[in-house]
């Protein structure tokens, strides 16, 4: 038997639909690979996937939770996308989210007796400012001294974690007898629109604004230019310092806003939970990287993709419970999704072509 002769061809630049297809194929591949694991565990894959999504998208069961988590992911994704458009890797959404938490709660505790109409905007502003300030540290160091922003943001994540730990575990914000904070005043709770906290719509609005920003605005053009070719951008008068600081500030602000969304938008919280719990929510922000890359830095595509990942996050544990599968199998699926996407990166550069035999 003759093997078909295959040849690799370099692709100059994949754009638009062609690039989106690669992402979609990688998701499909992840489903197929995970099916093999499910079969190995003796579960029917189709039934398993039905369990995940029927729970996650059922309005009486998981839909609110799915959307809440998805939008939290969307905040993190947007905070990741913006700097990467300018060529900067923001891995600090976790730290910026913690700082946003500090900002929002500080305001809520200090002026807790203000009416909602005044308190909530103040909390949002404080969360955004604290997050922005934290992001700017990395942007400033990068723009002024050329310090690698990945290292800085990653280290600041840990710093921020301990800052909150200091505040709530026996610290000034400690609740009664437990390792968690005092609850938020009632006036700080996010008002709902159609059963969802208003911040859900805030996240979607920011996505749309980002899309317009990237495609139409002057500053978006500068950010894209700088991200594609920093030295060319410098040659036409764009300042690396200003752009670095700007993108990191805005990204930090958005990650900071997600803190208000998380704590004040979900009835299960309305306070900062014990360290393990808030750390696991902080860890969620890293999925913003995944979503951002999967949607190829397109802020509009980020909305459905983050809902998809959010649904897996919410529906995964349900699958485990209902089908009595081993613990952690849902995390395996997310891992496979990530790996499959990384492997498919190859197809941005190459195309496999069959060589026609000539006889």
């Amino acid at each position, binding site marked *: 038997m003759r093997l078909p*002769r295959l040849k690799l061809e370099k692709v100059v630049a994949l754009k638009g639909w062609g690039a989106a297809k690669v992402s979609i194929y990688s998701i499909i591949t992840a489903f197929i690979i995970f099916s093999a694991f499910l079969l190995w565990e003796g579960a029917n894959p189709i039934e398993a996937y039905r369990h995940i999504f029927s729970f996650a998208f059922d309005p009486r069961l998981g839909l609110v939770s799915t959307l809440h988590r998805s939008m939290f992911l969307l905040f993190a994704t947007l905070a990741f996308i913006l700097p990467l458009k300018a060529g900067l890797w923001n891995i600090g959404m976790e730290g910026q989210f913690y700082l946003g938490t500090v900002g929002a709660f500080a305001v809520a505790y200090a002026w807790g007796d203000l009416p909602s109409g005044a308190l909530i905007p103040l909390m949002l502003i404080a969360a955004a400012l604290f997050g922005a300030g934290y992001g700017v540290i990395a942007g400033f160091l990068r723009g002024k001294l050329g310090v690698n922003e990945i290292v800085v943001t990653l280290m600041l994540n840990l710093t921020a974690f301990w800052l909150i730990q200091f505040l709530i575990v026996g610290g000034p914000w400690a609740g009664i007898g437990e390792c968690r904070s005092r609850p938020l005043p009632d006036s700080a709770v996010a008002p709902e629109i159609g059963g969802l906290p208003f911040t859900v719509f805030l996240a979607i609005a920011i996505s749309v604004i980002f899309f317009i920003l990237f495609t139409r605005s002057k500053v978006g053009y500068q950010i894209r*230019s700088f991200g594609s070719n920093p030295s060319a951008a410098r*040659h036409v008068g764009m300042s690396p310092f200003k752009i670095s600081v700007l993108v990191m500030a805005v990204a930090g602000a958005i990650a900071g806003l997600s803190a208000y969304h998380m704590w004040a938008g979900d009835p299960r919280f309305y306070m900062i939970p014990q360290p393990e719990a808030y750390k696991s929510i902080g860890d969620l922000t890293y999925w913003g990287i995944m979503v951002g890359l999967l949607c190829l830095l397109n802020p509009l595509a980020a909305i459905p993709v983050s809902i998809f990942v959010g649904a897996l996050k919410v529906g995964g544990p349900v699958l485990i419970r209902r089908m009595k599968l081993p613990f952690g199998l849902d995390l395996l699926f997310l891992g496979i999704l990530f790996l499959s996407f990384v492997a498919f990166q190859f197809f941005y550069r190459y195309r496999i072509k069959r060589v026609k035999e000539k006889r």
Partner: protein
Amino acid sequence: MRIGELPNLIQKMRSTLSGKPERRKGRVRESLVSGLKRGETVLEARGITKRFPGVVANDHIDFDIKAGEIHAVLGENGAGKTTLMNILFGILRPDEGGIYVRGRKVEFKSPLDAIDLGIGMVHQHRKLILAHTALENIVLGHPETGKIPDMRRAEEEVGKLCRKYGFKIDLNARVWQLSAGEQQLVEILKALYRGAKLLILDEPTSVLTPLETERFLKSLRAMARGELAIVPFITHKLPEVLGVSDRVTILRKGKVMKRLETRKATMKALARHMVGREVLFRLKKPKVKIGKEVLRVENLSALSDKGILALKGVSFSIREGEIFGIAGISGNGQHELAEALAGLRKAEGGKILFRGKDITRASVLQRLKMGIGYIPSERVEVGTIREFSLVDNIAMNLYFDKEYFKWGFLDRGKIREHAKKAILEFDVMAPNIDTKAAHLSGGNLQKLILARVVPRTSRLLIANLPTHGLDVGATEFVRNRLMACKKEGIGILLISEDLDEVLQMSDRIAPIYEGKFVGIVPAKKARKESIGAMMAGAPLEKTRKREGSR
């Protein structure tokens, strides 16, 4: 890599690992090496055709090369030279036609087959290990080196080759210490030491300084005096290389346009065959009234990227409609000067006055808005953004202008309109204005940069190596556009390594050497020899002599 060839590859890897040269049946490398007589046809290509999606890169090309001959292949970018070269060296396989070595048909599966038959190739971009010595690079990968290379024997043998062809090179120097010309010699020696009898050279003089070119051509002649066959591929710098070749083949759009003996050829005829129309080598300098002073530079100095003082205090002025030429070999501070004037590099000392105003501390953006344009020498790295469309590239010089944005939003319509006009005016060849810059090459890319910069430049244009590496047609285009700018009354700073270009274009010429102007000479009084000597930095007696005679 083709999957069907996997077993073949595994065998190759095995033989490489075991250190034994691979034995192949039916192919004897002696067929090319032994008993080669001068004038005998070494390699012949018949009816070579290669198609790529949308283009026929090679269209029934016949080509042959004799021992002891230098057979130059000329053609513009995109004429099919590279494809032909890659086919002769086994990197690509032809769709039709065959290659014959001493009359026997051969089939190259990979460059290894070509190397086995005594064909060597020297690439335009050197492929050497910088941290190793010249000798180590030459020995590296040689099939008979075995596991422990016998360096002393190798040195002796390579030394013999050097003496034979008159190469002067320190074999024990590290490659990073060698000049571009010497690195090229290392590449050639590497091929020769492997027993190459046919050398394919890709743009051999494009990175060499005039002095190095001279030396290099001499060694080419020495090599051809033996039984070596040499095929240089050239897009520009016709005169030097044509001076040494015996025959020339001219390619255009994938076809052989003309083949003739070099001594019967004239520059003009060659260029006409190459470009397909008349090319004027003598530019007519338009009569332009030289106006007011645009730029005055006083004692300007600047550091290089390595932090060394590269520009050591230069003073000059440029007036409206004047071209001020800076002639020099790259690395003598002219790049730093250009960047300091464009605002990209901090001035260590001195002053820059633009129309009487001190702009020494002004930002790049401020200078752009004043009508100062900069054409960078690195076209791909900083001149364009590869992933951007042509429109977005052109927008690089528009985005900061209030006319092209409102409330922070770019006026796409206006930008597209401007881009369309500029691309038409500057003859950028592309399917449409949304094509990505990555698809453009060489001359087209430079035209895009001109289309971006020139219409937005009203006072002063800094052109850093504007025609470097371009083919004849594109070079002519760029020079004409610069002359058009001059006519509009724009002051131009022209930085070039090409002495003829500087002499032809400039009104005044400043040869630069080690960060200082050796002098400033009006073009009328400039002679090629004296400027050339000044560029090399040993000018004093000559300039003094001329001053004495005045």
